[in-house]
């Protein structure tokens, strides 16, 4: 394995390690941009108005989210995910 390839592997491993540490502290729902179709059902179910449709995709404002998970239950495209 060349030095350059080793560097890439090390960088990827560090990213995954740091990412795992970061992700462990996240508790709020988030949007999977590949699955979201921008139908807007989640915006109607959100009691605090924390979700808006921007560029045809849902965007959650974390500061307004109360983690009730109503948007997760409403989204029939499984585009809103929540830490499990």
């Amino acid at each position, binding site marked *: 394995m060349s030095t350059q390839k080793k560097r890439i592997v090390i960088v990827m491993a560090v990213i995954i390690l740091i990412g*795992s540490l970061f992700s462990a502290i996240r508790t709020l729902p988030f949007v999977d941009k590949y699955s979201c179709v921008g139908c807007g059902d989640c915006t109607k179910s959100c009691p605090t108005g924390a979700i808006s449709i921007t560029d045809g995709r849902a965007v959650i404002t974390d500061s307004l989210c109360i983690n009730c998970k109503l948007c997760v239950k409403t989204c029939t495209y499984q585009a809103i995910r929540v830490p499990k």
Partner: protein
Amino acid sequence: MQTMRGVCAGMSTKRSILKRVHSASRAHVSTRVVACMVFMLLTMRVYAQAFIDQDFRMYDTNGSNDIAQLVQKLGMTVDLSTHQSLELKDDLVWSDYILTGNKQKLYNRLALLHRWQNYGFTVRSSYFGTAFDNAEMTDINLNPNSVNFIKYRNRFMHQANLTGKYELGFLALSSYAYGRRMYSDPTLVYSETSVVLEKINDDLYAGAEVVMKLPQDISCKIGVDLKQHVGGSYFDRTTTHVGIGIEKDILSVFNLFAATTIYNSNQPDYRDILTNQVVSELRLGHRIVPELAGFVSYINRSCFADPGEDIYLLANYLRAHLQYSMPYDLSACSYILAGVKSRPENLDAFHPSNTAYFLETDFKLGCGLYLGGNMNLMKEYRDEYSGKLTYHFNPISEVHVQMTQYDSNQGDPANPYRHTSYTIGTQMRF
């Protein structure tokens, strides 16, 4: 000896495939760029959200060689300040073998997006770069006068976008401008010397739209879209549209949306009858209890040559979803979803009629394990059945294995639609 030769040939093929994947990534170096930038930004303690999705899939086809497919998606969103954000995405798709009409493909797409938002203005600028390394020619209708005897192989595509939006109470103004350059290798199928083979093709797009919100939840819009093909006017197009829509909440349980838009296009290759197109949409969403949600939507596309003349049907689309979330799963991720997609009574030349029924489930087993299943029945084409086991090694990252069985409904036992795929993949969010 024969077997040894076969093994050697197989190894050689695999080596060449790996070489091609490597050469594509080397050609674009986007994966490395993204990886290094993610690492840099994380170490700089800038608030960022990143994801890495990878799926490796093996297809076991009926009487054919095994097929491999790799899909890798990397991405990151960084909030530079309260009003600015930066997004980086990189998709690598490699598919090895002709499957159900799809050609072998290998491409890498890099996207860089910047958003600025303040005082009601939103400005987005973005760049998309795609590197192709397809083994086979692709039919692209770049030259309508010689489409039958020129084949093209894609090489690179660069696209720069700029969009702007201004919202002022009941009024929203938006506009966009895109520029696209495509590099391709054209090849003459027959000896034809009079045709000039263009290796570079440029397209320019621009448009604007005004949306006005009226009382009683009614909104109306008017807009224009322009396309110019540099070096030839055959694909130039001007489209204007005007539309009206209404959105109403009914009994706090149902939500009704209805809209109609009329498009008028001016393009040389359009038949007269397609000059005016009408797209009408009706959508009824419902949420009777928090655990039960769904919608029914209907879209109709019709066309006419001139006002007052006959209207012709192009296509109908009908879609319905119903989802029940299991109350026992506090994360709301265990569910049963049933639905139907239908295109009844369509113009066959435009969109052949087709109906699909689907059922999807995912159940929490405990200890981060989820078991899911999926059934997709398309009576005109094929049926799909799949099972998926997912393990969440931390709250938002997972590793999964999936098996999917495809059955053809077209009567031919050797049909490539009949195959099985095995997938192993990860989804990581940071």
